[in-house]
Structures are given as C-alpha cells and as structure tokens.
C-alpha cells in the first residue's frame, strides 16, 4: 500500500470553497482526485458537493465537473463515457460522485442501469448517512435509531445494505472504504481507475453537523465506525471478496469489534439513547444488528 509520503502533491479541489469546516466530503474529494489526477470528468448530482463547488461564475474544482439532477448521476455519466469513447478519449476517467441520498434512494435506478449496461466509469458514493445538503433528513443509509429532522425520535428502520445490492450486479470492482483511511481510499480508487467496466466505491463520510459531533473529530469518527464494525472496509474484484485492515481482523475474529456504543455515544444524533436515561432496548438492538451483519459476512466470505 502506498505511503502518505508518496501521495501526489497536486490538488484538484481548490482552497476557499464553500464546504463546512471539517467536511468529510472535501477530505474524500482530495484523496480521490489525488488518485485519479487531472484526466478526470466528474458528474455530480444534487448533494453537498454541488454547494462545495462554490458560486457561479467561479468553481473550486480544477477538473471538469458536470452537475446533473439528483437521480441522474449514473445516467449522465453513461452519456459522458459514450461520448468520450466515440472521441477516442479512453484515457479520461469518468466518475460519478454522489451522496447516499443520490445513491441509495433517488439515484438507485439509474445506478443499477449503468452497472448492468457495463458503463466504463467509477461511481463513488460518499456516504454521510443522511440528506445533509437539505438539512439532515433520513435516507436509506441512515442507521437505526439515529435522529434526523425527519426521524425526530430516532429512525425505526435499519439502514439499507447497499453493498449487497451492488454485489448483486457482479461488476468487476466494488469496494467500501472510509475517509479516515487515506491509503485504503487511494489504493481502491487507483485500482478502480485501472479496471475497465463499471466500478463502485462507497466512502463513509462522518458529517459533523449531520451527526452532531465536534468538527475536529471527522476523521476519528470514521475510525471508530470501523473499529466498532458498524462500517466495514472491503473490496470485491471479479466476485472475489477481501476485507481490509481492521475489518479483516474482525471478520477473522482476530480482534473483537468495539461496542457500537463507543462510537455513537460521541454523536448527538444518538443522544436520546443516553439521556435522560439509557435506552437499553435500542442500544441492544444496535449491537445485535452489527453482530448479525458480521455473522452474515463470515458465513458468506470467510475462508473463501
């Protein structure tokens, strides 16, 4: 794996953009664009990044960016890719960069279509588990019991397993990572760049205002998510599944995952589970869900 010292110094996301302080999306964008370089066209649906780009007539992106409607990133990228192929510009990487709302929910159909058609692009979902650009509403990626402005007492349902949906398309490369692991992000994006066909990468992106934690803790929150097993680092190349880093150790039971409680207790969106008194029932349900997740991972992928 590449060392930080070997990461390119070039920046494609310019300083002085409109992102909130401590924004995980900009950390992710920097990493992704370091891996992809300037020969990249990015298609962006409605999401925080459409704001981060800053105001017309200026942009904070030093690569071509095409904004498109909320549900449309993958379809728009299909068109860009087809056009570039006609022009013989197969040296350019086409990337759709979308949030979890634009991926799990409203953009799912277009994404599934593009994967099935074999569009030669990388679809990257930066997942902050909410509709953050519209002001923190629940999405299909919001975890059970989390507060959002539309799940005021905590979400009643479990989050969608997007990874399973993606894997069902049997595309050449799919991966889950997190902004807290730059080497992991870099390596996965680089790998995806060099594979032909549809690639999907999902990056967990802890959002300070959305999750209600202090903005200096963005990176730490991502690590805690992985330590607790609430988020897994994996990659699947040609249907061969590999877990990475701590997630691999958790899968193989070489280490025990930390309690999810150790992660969520620092997030205001779960505050109602701790104050005024502990909500044992829901806290237990959260741990049981993550246990069941790993039981399933082990059943499906261990020793294969």
């Amino acid at each position, binding site marked *: 794996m590449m060392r930080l010292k070997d990461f390119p110094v070039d920046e494609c996301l310019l300083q002085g953009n409109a992102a909130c302080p401590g924004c995980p999306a900009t950390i992710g964008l920097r990493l992704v664009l370091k891996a992809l370089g300037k020969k990249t066209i990015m298609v962006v649906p409605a999401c925080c990044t459409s704001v981060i*780009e800053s105001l017309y007539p200026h942009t904070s992106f030093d690569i071509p960016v095409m904004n498109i409607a909320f549900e449309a990133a993958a379809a728009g990228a299909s068109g860009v890719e087809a056009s570039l192929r006609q022009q013989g510009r197969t040296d350019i990487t086409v990337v759709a960069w979308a949030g979890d709302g634009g991926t799990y929910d409203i953009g799912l159909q277009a994404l599934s279509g593009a994967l099935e058609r074999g569009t030669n692009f990388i679809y990257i979902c930066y997942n902050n588990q909410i509709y953050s650009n519209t002001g923190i509403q629940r999405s299909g990626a919001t975890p059970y019991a989390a507060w959002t402005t539309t799940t005021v007492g905590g979400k009643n349902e479990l989050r969608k397993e997007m990874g399973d949906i993606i894997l069902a398309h049997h595309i050449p490369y799919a991966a889950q990572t997190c902004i807290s692991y730059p080497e992991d992000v870099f390596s996965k994006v680089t790998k995806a760049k060099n594979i032909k066909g549809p690639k999907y990468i999902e990056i967990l992106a802890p959002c300070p205002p959305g999750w209600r934690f202090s903005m200096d803790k963005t990176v730490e929150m991502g690590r805690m998510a992985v330590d607790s097993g609430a988020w897994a680092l994996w990659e699947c190349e040609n249907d061969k599944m590999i877990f990475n880093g701590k997630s691999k150790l958790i899968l193989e039971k070489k280490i025990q995952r930390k309690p999810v409680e150790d992660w969520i207790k620092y997030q205001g969106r779960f505050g109602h589970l701790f104050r005024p008194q502990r909500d044992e029932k829901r806290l237990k349900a959260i741990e049981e869900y993550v246990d069941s997740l790993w039981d399933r991972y082990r059943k499906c992928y261990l020793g294969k």
Partner: protein
Amino acid sequence: MQCQSNYHGTRGGEEKLTIMIDTGNRIAAKAAIMAKPEVVAAYPITPQTTLVEAIAEYVARGEYKGEFICVESEHSAMCACIGASAAGSRTFTATSSHGLLLMHEMLHWAALARLPVVMCNINRVIGPGWNIWTDENDSISQRDTGWIQFYCSSNQEIFDTVIQSFKLAEHEKIVLPVMINLNAFILSHTSMPAEIPEQRVVDEFLGKHIAHWKSDIDNPTTFGNIIGPAYYYKVRRAMQQSHLRAKKLIPQIAKDWKKSSGYFHGDLLEYYKCEGAEDILLSMGAIGAESKIAINELQNEGQKIGLARVRVLRPFPTEEIIKLGKQANLIVIDRNISVGLEGVLFNEVKAALFGTSDIKATGFIAGLGGKDVTYKDIKSMCRKAIQGTSKAQEWYAMED
C-alpha cells in the same frame, strides 16, 4: 418493410434520390442515422418502439457507428443525451407520452444547459386509462421547457425536419434542444413515401458537430453549480433571445434544405390556399394534413377559406398569427386541452392577436384520446365557425 427503389427525383435537380416507402418512425430513424449522431440513448415506449428498433437494426448492420445506449428509463435516456452532448457529441433520442413526461425535469435541464439534443416525440395520449392513440397533450405540456417544438404532418416532413433540427439545434445563434413531434400511428405507423437524398447531401448540409461548450480536461469548467438570481435571470433571457432568433433561422434553414434536397414544408407555418381567404383554419400535425382536403372541398363549395398549418409551436409564430388576424377570421382546432382554460393553440393565437385585431376567433377541441378527426369533421367544424353556430370553444362531436 422497407421498399426502396432508386430513381432520379424531379425536385432534387441532379441529385440522386431514393424513394423510401415506410412508416414515420422508420423514416425518422433513417433521418437520425443519416445525421450521424455520435450517441443515441433511448428507452422503448409504444408507439415509439419501432423507431428505436430501426436504430438497433442500423447498429446490427454496421450502418450506424455511434454509441447506442439502451438505458433503463426515459429519464436516463435524456440524462445520457445530456451527458454525451456536454462531453461534445451530437445526440439523438426518441420517446412518447409517459416517456416524455418522465423526462420533463431533464428537458428543462437540457435547454438550460444549452445542449443541442434532438428528439422525436410520438404524440400519444396520457393515462390513465391506458390509451396508445394520438393526442398532443404530452408535448403541449412540455412547451415551457425551452425546447424548440416542430409538429409534422407527413413522413417526408418528418425526414426533412429531423435533418433540419440538427442544423438548427447546433447553430451558434441557437444552441438549444429540438423536439420533432409526430402523431401516434397516423404518422408513426403509417407507410408513406419519402424521398431520401444521398448521404453526402446530409453531410454537407449539417457539417461536423461543433460543441459550443463542453466538459474538457484541457479547459476545466464546472457546469451547473449554484447560480445567484442576477446571473440566472440572464441565462433565462439568453434562452428567450435564442428562441426569437430561431424564428428567423427556421425559415432560412428550411430554404437552405430545399436547395439541397428539394423539399419545403413551410416556415413556422405552412400556408395553404390562404390568398383571398376570409377565414383561415389553424391546425397542427396530422390534422393539419387532413385539413388540406377539407379546405379543397370547402373552396370548391365556394367558401373563401385557407389553411395555416402550425409547424412550430415554440418559438411561437406571433408575428405570422398577427398577419393572419389582419386578413381573416381564425378557426383553431386543438388536439390538446389545457384543463381549466382551453385548447393551447387557440389560447396562444388569441394572446398573439391581443390589441392588434378584432377578428373573430373560434376554437374547437377535437380528437382527444385518439378520436378520429377526418376531413369531414374538419369541414363540419369550419362550417359551424363560419356560420357562427359554434360555442366560444366547442368540444367537437362530443357524445354525451
């Protein structure tokens, strides 16, 4: 079902023309392929399907060398066209009815993005209940999206208008998407002859596609980020100005095409026997074609009546309508309804005439849900209007 025979057309001068006897859809596909779009993205919907299938056959035969993307919805079809156009390619798609409605958001997007996407829409009834026959409510309800809208009345006109649309859409003074409308089944599935010029003629007429803006790694831009009110206002005005310029360019391009291919179907309007007319009928699409027979018969019966077939609904031919309003009383047949108001063409004709004329305008709603409108029906509507026995806006042949 492609009956082709080579012969030397009389209208095309020395050019060698091919007669193609085929359906409106297949002739539209022929025109689209001859325009050589680099990317076609489409999703099937009755009655557009045979158009898409025809394109798939061109792909299979190796006669179409561009990218044909079979997307998973009409919404994605328009998105893929937008993406391809923004990356610098000539693009084409086709849809109908509910497909067009599903595209609605992206129709606005393509127009605001100033992307010269060309699309055929087969005018079909909107459900529920399911009805695959023709009326024009699908495209009429897209008239504010910024697309230029043509309405065709024959297969020859479909062919010629598709070619002209690429020229118009990509013209540096326009840079807007164009929609070519044809009535379900009456045109889409009816075989008629059309003269097809040589490929060279189309190539020379259209030239190579030039993108007026594109996503380019050597000149990075961000398209469509947040834009404040003052700038947005200008973007809207620029679209309006392009539409106004299109009023001059559509006739010019039609004349240029006539020089190349021999065919001319009118400017924004097609005038038929309007000279000396005291009443003029305004209609669109297939009813427009049927109207000619009605006009012939009415004139034979001694009526001073002519026809102005509206070919272009957007930009709206305001000046032309005003001229007509100075000459004659107007009779308008709408195969659409803006529910809660009246037929859209009738409404817009009256708006155009406001303050310029005190002639009588009579409107009819006819043919909704695919109800047949024959030349006899058209004659009957015209007579009622001339005699003054119709209601202000009448639902023609409504059976209670």
